[in-house]
């Protein structure tokens, strides 16, 4: 019943028949299916964080600090708003590119290139976390921003900032560790022996998700 070639019914009926067939709903490995479902759940976590941030931004009576001012750097006498954040965003999006290439080489079973690109991705992620640490230090030490208050305006600015970027930063840090472990296993030939590089793609899914979340944080927290 399962080994005969599948007869494809056209149209919506075919989609239904395919999806409600026995054994599995999606032709993907278990780990990949589970990662997708986890990311859906994680999406709800970040949505709740961002919605809550918007809510307290509306409920507070104090003025909201101007993010273009707060997150500006002075380079060679020029005052450039959001410079560091722009660089961080570039770094993270670049890391998505290297991750996608790693997945591609994983499909071709190119052990060395896959591992190299994954380590590069992890390094870019580490770079992102490093810049975030710089950003936090600057805010805390130089500007006097605290989770419970700041000199520029509403206390919720600092609360939301540290909570949301902190939670995202923990995701990135976890991702760096995750990618490093997988990359090490790629290099050691673990997946060659296992016969599949699917874990590389699963790790890639997670990494792209963390990048995507950053885009939303960037848009809703820094640009708004």
């Amino acid at each position, binding site marked *: 019943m399962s080994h005969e070639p599948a007869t494809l019914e056209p149209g919506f009926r075919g989609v239904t028949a395919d999806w409600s067939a026995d054994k*599995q709903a999606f*032709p993907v490995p278990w780990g990949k299916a589970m990662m997708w479902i986890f990311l859906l759940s*994680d999406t709800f976590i970040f949505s*709740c964080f961002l919605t*809550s941030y918007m809510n307290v931004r509306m*409920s507070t009576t104090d003025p909201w600090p101007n993010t273009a001012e707060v997150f500006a750097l002075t380079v060679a006498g020029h005052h450039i708003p959001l410079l560091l954040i722009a660089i961080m965003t570039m770094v993270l999006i670049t890391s998505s590119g290297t991750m996608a290439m790693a997945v591609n080489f994983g499909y071709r079973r190119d052990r060395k290139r896959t591992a190299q690109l994954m380590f590069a991705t992890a390094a870019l992620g580490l770079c992102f976390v490093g810049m975030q640490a710089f950003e936090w230090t600057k805010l805390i030490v130089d500007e006097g921003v605290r989770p*419970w208050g700041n000199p520029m305006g509403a206390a*919720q600015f600092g*609360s939301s900032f540290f909570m949301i970027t902190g939670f995202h930063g923990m995701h990135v840090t976890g991702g760096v560790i995750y990618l490093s472990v997988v990359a090490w296993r790629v290099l050691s030939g673990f997946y060659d022996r296992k016969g599949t590089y699917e874990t590389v793609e699963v790790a890639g899914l997670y990494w792209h998700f963390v990048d995507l979340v950053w885009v939303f944080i960037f848009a809703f927290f820094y640009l708004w």
Partner: protein
Amino acid sequence: MAFVAIADRDHEHALHDPQSFIRKYIWSQDHKVIAVQYALVAISIGLVALTMSVLMRLQLGFPDTFNIIAPQEYYQYITMHGMIMVIYLLTALFLGGFGNYLIPLMLGARDMVFPYLNMLSFWFYLLAVLVLVAGFFVPGGPTGAGWTLYPPQAVLPGTPGATWGIICMLASLAIFIVAFTMGGLNYVTTVLQARCRGMTFMRMPLSVWGIFMASILGLLAFPALFVSAIMMALDSLIGTSFFMPAVASMGEKTVHTGGSPLLFQHLFWFFGHPEVYIVALPAFGIVSDLLSTHARRNIFGYRMMVWAILAIGCLSFVVWAHHMYVSGMNPYFGFFFATTTLIIAVPTAIKVYNWVLTIWRGDVHLTVPMLFAIGFIFTFINGGLTGLFLGNVTVDVPLSGTYFVVAHFHMVMGVSPILVVFGAIYHWYPKITGRMFDEALGKFHFWMTFLGAYAIFLPMHYMGILGVPRRYYGYSDAIQFIPPSVHEANEWISISAMIVAATQLVFLYNLIHSYFKGPVADPNPWRATTLEWQTPQTPPKHGNWGKDLPEVHRWAYDYSVPGAPEDFIPQNVPHSDKTPVGREHGVPT
């Protein structure tokens, strides 16, 4: 390279039977052992909550007599009773317990897709329970914020447990959510990806459908609770103001300013309402299977039952603010949420009609599981009908602060699911332990619990309509609108509650005694069709199925098929002259 379904790759399941006692029963990765571990911890902590409710009833029924609970402790009892029962007993027992046990067995899988993660899920759950219990012993005792933990009072001094207790509660909830996520991912992925040959979605038993949908709801609803737990912990620990407005407490202005207490309510109920269905949907599914099996009839309207589960699951995300009618919101919001709430009654009513039509003119065997299943229909209709009152804004506003809500909530979310839990434990007890329970004690347990539940909660409707406020430590004669009959009702309720609580000891005795001394059970004592009863051994061994996975040829409800020699045909029996095609939808009969 052609893709081979993983269910067909047997080497993926290279099973190494654990030999040592510890690997077999403690650090076990076997879904059946994990299920029993989950169930035992859940029942144990549930007994704590049950004891607390008895103590509260002693206070309410006989004020100024026992003095076990001091007035300032009463809210702590309410809070812990509610939270334990809803989260740590019902959610854990239905998903961690029955979900773990039934999903792989009913779907013909050897285990969950990621057994190690499944094991971690249980240990995190145990940790969550331990942190929760630690709340009883920290300075100030557990939190007394009410089970909904509304700010600002949850973290303000003056509320019991506002320093340590609330942190234990929030930490415990966060750990529980991590534990559930690990389990829930497993349940959903197993249902999607690891069904055996022939097991299509529309052949899955409704138990699996209910648990599957409830797990999805959990994965999407618990994030809101997780986020609110983090934010409230930050408010409490380091003085942020997510939920805390500028308030004066104990005559002093607090450090907080500009937060939104309503935000917490929205987040909490965005979790809280789906949570109702996280508990209810597995109960719906399991009760469908119990009714069908013990009435020897196919479930009426299987497809509609499935669609109703899906519809209820989706709708449950757009009704949450009906818990907040008295919190103050735009009247149009109330209109919207009342409408969606009443729309949920449609799929729910479909399910109730289908249950009744399933046993209608069936060959009903009044076994212990069947009694509990029928009892569930009664209590659920009762609790559902009072839900129609509370779903309407104008009716809810005067009733919301009264015992009517207590009665409704306990009928629909306390008694109804717990009756299914009892029925399900009795139903699967022979498979889990290999022994048969004592039927007479089981029937005694049913009648005392079922009638007792009505003795407890029916008078509360009356009290609620009289306007008796809930969450009160006592009702002095100075509250003039409360007539003497309410005091009598309170005594009656308390005595009934103690009898019902004592009856649960009979249940525990039955379970424990039968485990050691009960007669050896038949592998399929109820002559049921679903796969878990067709395992080569009873109780099933590690890996469930021996050498070959089962193959499914029919739906789960081929009872009393005309022309068949017996009144049931298991799902793994192929079509033949002696075992004809049943009433499976889409298959001509």
